[in-house]
């Protein structure tokens, strides 16, 4: 029983982290209908920015967010203007080619700047754990999970309680209608893409206290984000959380009871079942 509860607990924590990876992806996909395959690489950018700031200034990765957030926002605006805006109304194949091209370029720049070997950050709480009733929860993991929940809540509030959020949802539902109502669609999309990049970089920096970074991790991250979006529903922040938790819990429990190798198979079985039952996801249409 302890094994099950430990697996479940770890799974919930990791699930929040996966949701964090996926929020920016689902936002961009749901609002702009753009599949950004480079999203995982944006997460890796956040990781490496945190690594750079840590090794240069010895700042904790959470403190490095003061630099990571504005940097990723600016980066997102530039990418939107140069790459996303021209392809936004093009067929899906254009999205795929352009964003995979961006993934390769960014990955190679990271490799040139930081080298190809794996990098980590070791802070005072990297291997510390909180023990509750015999169940151990890594402090670093808890911090990342807690941050993720705060970001999910803030993102929900932004989308549902602010004028900008209303504009985003209007554009997601009906672009022409939004134009007609005076919404500056292009500016809205630009800011949304910038926010998506911030969320990606934010999540990358937040996991550095316990994760191992490599320039080529981006594709694995975006595939997981894709699965989460399919389960949770395109454009739904709440859906990203639910999708992330499902993936995290399945992975945690199956790894603990059987093996991590079977956990991957279990995840894809769930994906297939989801596609059969509800292909739009749990919270479809809730941008």
């Amino acid at each position, binding site marked *: 029983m*302890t*094994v099950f509860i*430990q*697996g479940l607990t*770890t*799974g919930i924590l*990791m699930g929040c982290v996966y949701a964090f990876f996926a929020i920016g992806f689902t936002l961009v996909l749901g609002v702009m209908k753009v599949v950004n395959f480079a999203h995982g690489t944006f997460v890796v950018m956040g990781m490496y920015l945190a690594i750079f700031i840590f090794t240069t200034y010895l700042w904790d990765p959470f403190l490095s967010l003061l630099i990571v957030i504005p940097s990723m926002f600016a980066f997102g605006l530039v990418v939107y203007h140069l790459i996303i805006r021209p392809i936004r109304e093009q067929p899906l194949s254009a999205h795929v080619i352009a964003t995979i091209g961006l993934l390769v370029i960014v990955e190679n720049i990271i*490799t040139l700047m930081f*080298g*190809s*070997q*794996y990098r*980590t950050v*070791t802070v005072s709480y*990297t*291997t*510390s*754990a909180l023990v509750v009733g015999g169940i*151990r929860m*890594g402090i670093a993991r808890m911090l990342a999970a807690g941050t993720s929940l705060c970001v999910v809540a803030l993102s929900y509030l932004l989308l549902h309680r602010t004028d900008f959020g209303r504009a985003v949802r209007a554009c997601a539902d009906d672009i022409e209608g939004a134009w007609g109502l005076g919404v500056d669609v292009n500016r809205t999309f630009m800011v949304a893409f910038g926010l998506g990049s911030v969320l990606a970089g934010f999540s990358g920096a937040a996991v550095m206290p*316990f*994760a*191992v970074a*490599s*320039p*080529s*991790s981006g594709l*694995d991250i975006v595939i997981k984000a894709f699965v989460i979006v399919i389960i949770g529903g395109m454009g739904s922040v709440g859906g990203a959380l639910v999708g992330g938790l499902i993936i995290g819990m399945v*992975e*945690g*429990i199956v*790894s*603990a*009871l059987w*093996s*991590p*190798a079977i956990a*991957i198979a279990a995840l894809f079985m769930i994906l297939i079942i989801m596609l059969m039952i509800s292909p739009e996801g749990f919270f479809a249409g809730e941008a």
Partner: protein
Amino acid sequence: MEKGRGWPAAAIGISLIIIFLGGIALLGITPIPGLTAPATVKVGIDVGLTGFAAAWGKHAWNTYQLAFDKVNAEGGIKSLAGAKIEYKVMDYESKPDIAASNAEKLISWGASVIFGCNSSGAAMTASQVCQRAGISFIDTTDADPMITGRGFKWVFRTCPMASQLVPSAAEFMTYQGKVTGVKPTRVALLTVEQAFGASVRPVFVEGIKREGFNLVEDITYPTDQKDFTGVINKLKTRGVDFVCFVCSTPDSILLIRTFKEMDYNPIGHIGIIGGQYTDDYVKTLGKDADYTFDSCFWTPDLKVSGMADLMKEYRTRFGLDFDATDATVINSIAVYRDALDRAKTTEPEKLREAIASTDIGLGRYGYLVPDGCKFDATGQNIKQKAIVFQIMDGKWLSVYPPGVAASKAVWPILKWSQRK
């Protein structure tokens, strides 16, 4: 009777022939390839400089540069009239299919030999290309028995393979149990799902059982596994008191961090080459890397002439510590140089025969590990010993076998709460 053209004509004819042949020789064209010494000897290097293999590949590439530049600075290959070594590296990005296409490109470029690969999957595909093309492939570090188990006459391996490394690890566990009275009673095996892991796993399972240990968990995990808390929790709950690993560098780092996070304190843990012998492992984990055991093919405390200077030179040039990957590259280059001396040509078949008949000892062209290199009929080095080391204060110390080891193992290893 018609008079002959006479001596003047003969002299002109002979002169023209001499000029013609001289001209051909100047252009480097010979009727039989390999008969004249080449001005350069081309060497292909197929390594992983990005992806999971980069932790080993980067080191290997450093050593190729150091060693070949040194050969050239010292006058080149003496048996080939001072021919310089022209080397070319290609990154297979930790993907076996790219390793194969790299090998094809290097062979088209004119490589007389291909060195590789620092991952078994890549070595399997690259060596296959070399076998087809009739160019020798020298594997420096990969443990999959199938690399030399396919009957490929063009494939050679200088390092011990899994079936030589694993028995060392399992025998070490038995030896330590006898010497200290603390014997593992419940053993687990964690294996990464790569060609390396897949090939070593059955050998390890057999080795553990042959030594009479109780293997209670045999767990495999995917290459990009990001979290081991569930696995370690399972080992704790099942009372596993010794863990055997077959893993790459990022996994080994994550595993030890998780051991500490979960306060998991086995008697010990041992790997088979893998991430434990890389300086990335030691630098990233710091003191947490201490007490790690690994069955490998080199440690810096072996008494080998010239090794200290080589290690110093490496550190000066690259700012990194020389590790076991670097040692395996030096060993492979030593074999190649010795073979060139005997073949006196880069003609592929003659060179292959020379490599196949290699029988060199410790120290020959800087060969760094007892007892040197001699290939059996499959191309596997049967002379070199496997060495078990333990990391202490960031240093790899040889602790087994008794005749070679420079230090005594700390067994059982200290619990996390006991370490400073």
